[in-house]
């Protein structure tokens, strides 16, 4: 085997060329790392929301809760469906009025979903906990999702203007990064009065267990009296992510294409490195180094360059992610960077190195000794 020092010294031999290659690959890795993280951040809250035994029922044909209006008389029908769980003799069906609204805090306006809920809410939404303070309730007591509270700098006791009415923050909702963390919850009737809504927007329902969920969905879709449509909650929230997941896949696609481009650049550099060293390779071969050693040496050289670029790229991506741009659908408003994304970015760098260095390394190993030394 060729000593590693030989390889490392080669990396430093053509500084400008190697530097440019490293810079190029680093930028590619930065794009991949950043877009991957952006994509993941935008869909994470939607992907984690909803338990398998939960159902969301909306008006038939409404793509989002936002556009759904349900006649209140359907509540009894939903409550008496087979398979609906109950607690203390009360069916676990939570009527909701979820409105995409603009809330006002200290004169500043901010878009947020306001969800009107009833007293049954704590038993139905098992993914939501109130960590500090109380559940929302009559008397204009609101509970605010922890992410939204952090973005707004709102604490318990502060007041919010919602639909023209004043509400006081009585509790903080913690749903572990799910969509509820970015909502404000208030009493349903008070919200309905403030927003002049005579309908519900949706029901969240808890079934006895996940196995009866398909039956409930079918029963509801076959019902003629109320035009409702039901979905299991995980699927519903994943689908709600529509725009976010479209943007996420766009981000991922861009990252992949840029990576392909980087392979061409990497290959160019390594071919040049091989071409410039033909004689040297021939000498090494004449000295008795095997083809495999030569192949290995060039592959390692290319890997070292690519990995150095990978580390730089991840650093660069991290710096860009610290920018004050507010990312839509992000729980914290920022891009959240994960170690798994960083690892896959480094992996990508390694692949660029191997693919970009592969063909040139094979060419190097095939160098004709006699011809070159003549």
């Amino acid at each position, binding site marked *: 085997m060729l000593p590693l020092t030989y390889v490392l010294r080669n990396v430093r031999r053509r500084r400008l060329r190697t530097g*440019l290659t490293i810079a190029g690959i680093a930028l590619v890795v930065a794009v991949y790392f950043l*877009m991957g993280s952006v994509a993941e951040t935008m869909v994470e809250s939607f992907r984690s929301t909803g338990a398998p035994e939960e159902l969301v029922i909306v*008006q038939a044909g409404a793509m989002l809760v936002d556009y759904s209006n349900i006649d209140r008389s359907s509540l009894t029908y939903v409550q008496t469906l087979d398979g609906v769980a109950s607690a203390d003799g009360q069916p676990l069906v939570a009527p909701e009025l979820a409105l995409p609204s603009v809330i006002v805090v200290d004169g500043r306006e901010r878009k947020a979903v306001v969800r009107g809920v009833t007293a049954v809410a704590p038993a139905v939404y098992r993914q939501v906990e109130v960590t500090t303070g109380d559940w929302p309730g009559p008397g204009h007591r609101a509970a605010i999702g922890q992410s939204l509270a952090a973005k707004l700098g709102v604490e318990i006791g502060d007041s919010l203007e919602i639909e023209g009415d004043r509400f006081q923050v009585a509790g903080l909702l913690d749903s572990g990064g799910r969509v509820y963390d970015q909502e404000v919850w208030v009493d349903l009737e008070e919200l309905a009065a403030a927003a002049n809504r005579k309908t519900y927007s949706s029901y969240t329902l808890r079934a006895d267990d996940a196995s009866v969920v398909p039956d409930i969905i079918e029963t509801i879709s076959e019902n003629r009296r109320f035009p409702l449509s039901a979905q299991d909650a995980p699927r519903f929230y994943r689908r709600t992510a529509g725009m976010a997941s479209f943007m996420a896949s766009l*981000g991922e696609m861009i990252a992949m294409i840029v990576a392909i*481009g980087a392979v061409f650049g990497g290959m*160019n550099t390594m*071919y040049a490195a091989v071409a410039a060293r033909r004689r040297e390779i021939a000498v090494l071969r004449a000295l008795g180094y095997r083809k495999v050693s030569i192949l290995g040496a060039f592959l390692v050289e290319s890997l070292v360059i690519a990995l150095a670029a990978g580390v730089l790229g991840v650093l660069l991506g991290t710096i860009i992610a610290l920018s004050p741009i507010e*990312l839509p659908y992000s729980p914290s408003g920022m891009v959240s960077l994960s170690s798994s994304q960083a690892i896959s970015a480094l992996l990508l760098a390694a692949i660029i190195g191997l693919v970009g260095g592969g063909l040139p390394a094979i060419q190097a190993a095939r160098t004709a000794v006699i011809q070159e030394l003549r």
Partner: protein
Amino acid sequence: MILRMFPFLWKNLWRNKRRSILTIFGVAVAIFVITALGAAIAGMTFPVREVGATSLLKVREKSRANVLASRLPQAYENRVAELPGVAGATGVLSGLAVLGDEGVHIFVRGVDPDRFREVRNLQIDSEAWAAFVDDRKAALAGHRLMRRMGWSVGDEIEISMLGLRVQIVGAIPEQGIDLESHLLVQRENLQIAREAEYQLSYVLVEPAAGKPPAELAAEIDDYMAASPVATTTATSAAFAEAVVEDFMGFVDYLKIMKWIAVLITVLGAANAIAMSVRDRTQEIGALKALGFTPNLISSLVLLESTGLALIGAILGIALAGWAIGSSAGELAGLELTGWDVALSLAIAVFVGLAGGAAPAAAAARLHPVDALRIID
């Protein structure tokens, strides 16, 4: 002189085929990314561009950013129409549906035909209009929508999501507004289908001549503040901007990516060109010995690099055009604008010049004696 050099340049390009092809591919991929990103940004911000500079105002429910979630009582239509400074007002109920296996999103607008036509100043042939006004189950489809869905006049279509069945009685022709890709139906029809009797999504208002829209908007909101449902009034353009604002953060990231892609292209091309000039040191020395001026030599290097970059750019733009024109691209709302194509070509020229600058200067400076002395 330069012109006569073209065969020479062309041959040079193919002397190291592999390098030229890799360089062209590198540039092509980058230009593809730049163009595709531009198309994605254009597609995502289309609401802002589509409504353009109309002076029409939209009155919607206060606090409701999304028009589909806004609900106003139908009576607001007349209340607004009677205000001083209002030339005309008409209530619209909006709906959104997904159609077909491809999942095409279409906007359906329930309108009161005559009032809507007057306020919106809709251009349409009188026969289609008469058919639309007469039949409660009639619909007018924007010409873009018809082309995309493969509909023709006379077709009966079912939009099961909205519980709506309508017959297309005419196409809305090109007139530079968003209606070209929407479906117009009678308001009452949509209200019944959506269980939204006597409800509107918004009221479209035409300010009287000479009345500043912003002033009128404030007056409408003041007047409505005491009503059961308070309103927010804004120009259609401002409204569209508010919709787009929601995901501007993501668009900002796309823009950063775009400029990084430009940088990547410059670096890659510069590297490749520098390599090819370096390889040809001896040859350049020979040219100098033959009497080629430094200017001519640097022009040759620059021409070669620009040519490479342009070939790559054209390939990349063609690729992007193909991807954007495909059904998946159209579905995603991607849009290739002339501006993006021009920008991509400009970037390619810049890449060629910037990438070739240093090697060109080096080549021009080269002393023939030094160059020829190198024994390879």
